């Protein structure tokens, strides 16, 4: 126990400020207010790997490390699509995942956002379209925002999530 507590004390707080989005950068407060206005609570994300190489997953997982501290920004990952506001999709959509992706999308209550993560999700990446791949996510379900990169950095993914919510909140507040 002593070891555990001493490690905590020595480590301190590591969380870095949120990345800026285009237009006026939201502070943590305005972001959380925006979230509350649109979704009525913290932003809940459901992730679906629609056929990725697993590289993008590693960077999404990194969002939960203490530097990015996603939950601290009022954003959390949930286990069921029925609890989600935003669907984060990685990979080109493999033919074998097409149906599962569509069903997950349908299970998310409105209003819902979809962010396609990675070059594969954004444009098909190295896999493109083929007998086994439907290519970019937008070929299968509607997409609000794409994050390029192979894999995109956690900061880029975080910026993509914030940007999606921010642009929706600014259009709804007008």
């Amino acid at each position, binding site marked *: 126990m002593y*070891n*555990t507590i001493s*490690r*905590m004390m020595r*480590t301190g707080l*590591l969380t870095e400020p949120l990345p800026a989005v285009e237009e006026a950068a939201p502070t943590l407060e305005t972001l959380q207010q925006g979230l509350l206005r649109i979704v009525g609570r913290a932003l809940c994300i459901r*992730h*679906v*790997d*629609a*056929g*990725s*190489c*697993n*590289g*993008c*997953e*590693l*960077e*999404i*997982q*990194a969002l*939960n*490390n*203490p*530097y990015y501290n996603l939950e601290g920004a009022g954003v959390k*990952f949930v*286990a*069921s699509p029925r609890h989600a506001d935003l669907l984060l999709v990685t*990979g*080109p959509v*493999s*033919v*074998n*995942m*097409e*149906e*599962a992706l569509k069903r*997950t999308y349908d299970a998310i209550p409105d209003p819902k956002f979809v962010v396609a993560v990675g070059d594969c999700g954004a444009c098909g*990446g*190295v*896999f*493109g*379209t*083929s*007998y*086994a*791949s*439907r290519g970019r996510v937008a070929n299968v379900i509607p997409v609000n925002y794409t994050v390029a990169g*192979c*894999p995109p*950095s956690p900061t880029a993914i975080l910026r993509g999530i914030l940007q999606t919510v921010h642009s929706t909140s600014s259009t709804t507040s007008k």
Partner: protein
Amino acid sequence: MLPDFMEQRTALPANMPSSHLRVDGQQWLWAAEAMRQFCARFLSLWGADDRDRDGCFRIYAAYLLPESVLVVEHSIAAAAAPFYPSIATLFPAALRMERAVHDLLGISTDEADHRGWLRHGGWPETLFPLRRDVDGSQQYPIVSAPYPCVAVEGDGVHEIAVGPVHAGTIEPGHFRFSVVGEKVLRLEERFGYTHKGVAKLFENLSQQEGHRLAARVSGDSAVAFSWAYCAALEAITGTTCSSRAILLRALALEHERLANHLGDLGALGNDAGFAFGLTHFSRFKEDLLRANTVAFGARYLFDYVVSGGVAVDLTEQSRRLLLDQYDALEPAVANMRSIYDEHAGLQDRFREAGRLEHSTAERLGAIGLVGRASGIACDLRVDHPWAPYDRLDPQRIMQTGGDVAARVQVRFDEIIESLRLCRALLAEPPMDGIRTFVSPAEANQLGIGLIEGWRGPVMVALETGPDGTIRRCHAHDPSWQNWPLIEYAILGNIVPDFPLINKSFNLSYSGQDG
């Protein structure tokens, strides 16, 4: 002694001693029997369509012997129903690979299990995408059919179906549990969900670009796959990379091992209810990835290993930064290890959970990290050291427990050993260049590259086409062999322990789906 027909072996271009043997159908089986007798490890099985060349399909199997690698090749005349004898009774891991070969090429075995493995109804049953007369870019509507899982019957037995979409940021796959109360009586896995037609895509690439696709077979093993690809190409073309490039490749490979082990140790703590472990290990991992950005130009080294060398040189400043990083990481990991070891709740979850007995591991052909945690001495860096491991004297890490705790300990020990290797690599780096020109290979040459990735041996078998093209490329992830082991390790455990046990194996879905 090996049977007589096996003396006909010829040398095969590879980054470790390897040979090539052409056999007929009967000898295909005899060779497998001989390999079983000699306690060879089964590495991979794949097929090719060569009807345009000589009217034959081909099936290949690769085995790992104590001194060398053997690739056995069997030509199958392209009859109406091309056929070869299954080796799955000798090497159970071959079964899923044989099913995959059937889905892609339409050549089958005498095995009873003919359920599609990669084909889930996404393309017609009579279409075999890896055949040369099939246009791989064509799209087809999905016609899904039910997949008959083996049913367990009896008083109080019920089924739990999980996936393909899981509750978390992980890859898709389907698990069918038959349980009584909470105890698992049987688990059946079904994969193929992330099949992206990688083998077919390789055939549209040039030899110079192939490493980029290889790196994306399983992103967490990008360095291992791209190095295996380049090793095969360099062996075929007789290219020798500079010693600096070789050193930097090994450094990148060890960083990949470190990053994955650190991530896994955190996730394993978390899955056992100790979020503190995740916080700290994910921080160490992030620190390492940030150091990667400075030293190698990217957090994940997807395009770092290139044909003939590496893409980015290491500056003297980065070298010192990395050494400082290791000095900070080593005591931090040691500190976390004592915290894990002394945490009664954590050890209670780790010990005895998901035990893979040595005998089961041996019979089913466990390989890599999972094998080493069940007492299987198999590490290419130790057994078949290729450059630069031949001068680093890598230490074999082993545990015999076979449970989650053993797989945790192997990871801790491998982190320490990897750090030692990294320091040795950076001690006096040679100053020659980082990239050698690789001339286009002659057509119809077969070569293999084998690299011990963080999960286990990653293999690429490359066959060249004319004018710098790829004729066939088979990329094999060790997850193929190790996935079926979870079906055994879970028996008698409770369903809620599955995520922890599964994480302790941490196998690749994309790597096996291809």
